[in-house]
């Protein structure tokens, strides 16, 4: 997919583990892993909102478009 999720980069920058983010955002680690490994087909605005809030970032920091 042309949309790339940079969750791993943001987590490293914020020195936060996937488990901690999952706890804070309120979604399962399994679902967060799907997002992190670029396997997700869609992301809810509510999830995006919660991740951006906890990582103190903009949606553009998390998502990028890279043509195939």
């Amino acid at each position, binding site marked *: 997919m042309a949309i790339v999720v940079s969750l791993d980069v943001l987590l490293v920058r914020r020195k936060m583990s996937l488990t901690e983010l999952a706890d804070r955002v309120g*979604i399962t680690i399994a*679902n*967060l892993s*799907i*997002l992190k490994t670029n*396997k*997700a*087909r*869609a*992301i*809810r605005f509510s*999830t995006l909102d919660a991740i951006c809030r906890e990582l103190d970032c903009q949606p553009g920091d998390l998502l990028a478009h890279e043509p195939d």
Partner: protein
Amino acid sequence: MPGRALQWITATRLLLDVMFYFGLVGAAGIAIWLALSPLVMRDGRPGNATLPVAVGEGVLYPTVDLAVDRAAAPEVTQAVLVGARGELRIETTDWSLQFLPNLGMLLALGIVLAIVNLLRRMLRTVRAGDPFTEVNGRRLRAMGLLLLAVGVIGPLLEYLLARAMLARIPVADLTLVAPLDAQTEVVLAGLLLLVLSAVFARGAELERDRSLTI
């Protein structure tokens, strides 16, 4: 899953299993008979064969003009027997006349068994709680195509077989023809399954999207 639904699934599964395994035994019996019949029939021992026939002239609507007793019923001006169907049972020493109908029966039984087996596999996924998959969509499509084959090719094969056999059985009392029976219900059921399989495939895709939506 609610208890009543589970009971229904268990009962249906049991029924399908019984149908499948009995069908397998039947198919094996016919296959063994077909394989051994050349040896058994070699000594000219007679055996039975049955084929579908219709009385009269014509293929789709065989008719026979009947004589009317005008003295007893002057108001009846004509009587025509239409579409009288039945089975012709013969006893013959000709091995091929017995072999061909059984070969057709084995083929039909094979298709029915394939459909029952696909249903069993689908039911297994329902019981496991994950029926909306692409595999089940493909199973529905396969069932639809098999039903179409049964509904379209089946009557044609039966007609050709009965016609070829009738040509070798001289019956003097009646005019018999091989009937061509359109199996509209089976064709419609096949088409319905093909449409359902397309709907199912779309549903499976949506389900996959839903499961991968974070």
